[in-house]
């Protein structure tokens, strides 16, 4: 599945498609008889099968977390953290990264064909929850012969999957690493998601989600959704430092063309997102984010939810993150302490905002490295 990596890179990676033929009952009440997940793995599973680490991706992430596909110049989305000698050390761990169910990068999702109708799923694809993802990922783990993860790791929406894993399948997670996440999202966050969804839903090219059959994509809506998202992933200070108020030309042109650097940046981000992402998946992912609330299953007590967990936790937050602020991570930590669960919490001094969880900040990577090195020792990796 991979060739040997050099210089801290896992090198060229080839994704594989895993068929999950066990029926999956979803939270919405519907049943998926079978589904496919596209997966990348890095490193070697040891004989005891004890060194496996699961990477859970965030809103727009996918299975390609590290290394290079054959023709690529850019590596996977978390390549700075996963590789030989990196914090998630592939010399010691067997790292599994997947595109979640409902994704648009090769796993069963709205842009794939429903085998029962022979039609692209589109808007008929069921809405999913983080719990559904954890069930789907647990079927993948079983298929890969992994009874227990040495660690489940994720940032943002990925961190929510980590918490859900620890609560729903306590014996299958030794360590839970929850980065830049929240115990449920705020009304402000739901509001941002709703605007993003309305941008997509109101695009005339959306066609009720059946745009594939019309040979178009709701590009305007998806672009706006991504532009809005990007504002929330950056701090005010980072935007000021990066773009300032600078006009691209010496004088204002008094029209609605791109005049400021930040406009140019947002349009570029929106544009490139349309090329790689599916609007129905974006809708589905934002809904999963909105629905996440593990306390809801335990009389609205996050403490009661975490009492189920057996994992040790590492929680990390970033000082400049206002989308998933440190205060939200402290809520997670407080509930874990009240539940008597082992937890460490690091607050990383940062400037970029929510996106910092993807950056190779030295203190951040040091914490991960220290923590995971102990995990590796513990599981005999």
């Amino acid at each position: 599945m991979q060739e040997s990596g050099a210089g801290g890179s896992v090198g060229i990676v080839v994704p594989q498609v895993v068929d999950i033929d066990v029926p999956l009952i979803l939270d919405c009440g519907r049943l998926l008889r079978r589904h496919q997940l596209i997966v990348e793995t890095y490193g070697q599973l040891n004989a005891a099968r004890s060194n496996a680490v699961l990477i859970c991706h965030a809103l727009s992430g996918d299975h390609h977390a590290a290394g290079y596909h054959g023709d690529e110049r850019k590596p996977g989305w978390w390549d700075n953290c996963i590789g030989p000698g990196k914090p998630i050390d592939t010399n010691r761990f067997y790292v599994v990264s997947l595109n979640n169910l409902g994704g648009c990068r090769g796993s069963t999702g709205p842009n794939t064909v429903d085998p029962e109708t022979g039609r692209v799923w589109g808007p008929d694809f069921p809405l999913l929850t983080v719990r559904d993802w954890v069930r789907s990922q647990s079927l993948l783990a079983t298929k890969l012969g992994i009874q227990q993860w040495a660690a489940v790791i994720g940032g943002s929406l990925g961190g929510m999957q980590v918490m859900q894993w620890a609560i729903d399948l306590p014996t299958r997670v030794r360590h839970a690493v929850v980065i830049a996440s929240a115990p449920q999202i705020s009304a402000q966050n739901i509001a941002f998601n709703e605007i993003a969804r309305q941008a997509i839903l109101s695009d005339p090219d959306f066609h009720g989600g059946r745009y594939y059959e019309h040979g178009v994509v709701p590009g305007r809506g998806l672009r706006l959704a991504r532009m809005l998202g990007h504002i929330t992933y950056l701090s005010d200070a980072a935007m000021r430092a990066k773009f300032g108020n600078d006009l691209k030309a010496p004088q204002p042109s008094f029209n609605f063309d791109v005049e400021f650097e930040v406009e140019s940046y947002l349009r570029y981000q929106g544009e490139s997102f349309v090329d790689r992402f599916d609007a129905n998946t974006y809708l589905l992912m934002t809904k999963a984010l909105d629905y996440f609330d593990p306390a809801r299953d335990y009389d609205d007590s996050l403490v009661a939810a975490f009492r189920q967990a057996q994992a040790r936790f590492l929680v990390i937050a970033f000082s400049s993150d206002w989308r998933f602020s440190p205060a939200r991570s402290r809520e997670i930590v407080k509930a874990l302490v009240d539940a008597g669960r082992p937890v460490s919490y690091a607050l990383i001094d940062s400037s970029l905002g929510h996106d910092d969880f993807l950056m190779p900040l030295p203190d951040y990577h040091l914490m991960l490295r220290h923590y995971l090195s102990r995990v590796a020792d513990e599981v005999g990796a």
Partner: protein
Amino acid sequence: MSANLDLDTGIGLRPDLQLIAGWIKPGSRVLDLGCGDGKLLDYLAQHRGVHGYGLEIDTANVAACIARGVNVIQADLDDGLRDFETGSFDYVLLTQTLQALQRPDEAIEEILRVGRSAIVTFPNFGHWRVRQALLSGHMPVTKTLPAAWYDTSNIHLCTVADFDALCAARGWRVRERRLLNRAHREGWSIRLAPNLFAEVALYQLRGRLGS
């Protein structure tokens, strides 16, 4: 925890911390405020089966705790203990940090809310070397108070007599009091004149009766 007490023993734990470890019942829940590199919590976990968490502000110390496998929460003590439930710990420890807090008295009230017992240690500002320095007209610089007046983090120093008076005034019950010299021993001189000869004071406190 300041690093100004560096007398290590064979097991790598300072004698004052060994003394504290002896006060802690096996299997209890411990919160160590300003836990430094986590050495004490590590010792308590391994030798007394204690379930503990440390609070620490310094990033290098937090990293050291994580490397040791000690539960550490990165937070500023001056922001208080509001994230901790009343009576949620058997012991709350504050070693060599009291004098650096904004309001030591309020901190101890909070500690006694969160913990059934408080274990507090501080450098005794009544020690004769301190008095000698002050008599000679200078702020003291000693082994337990190594920083100069302008760069010390100590803003609320007190003597053993001051602390006893505070305990009495607030109704805190002193369960244990141990006074140590610079070698972390309890010599005859300390028994004779504790406030003059003790360099380090260790207290175990309980809250007011009925509280």
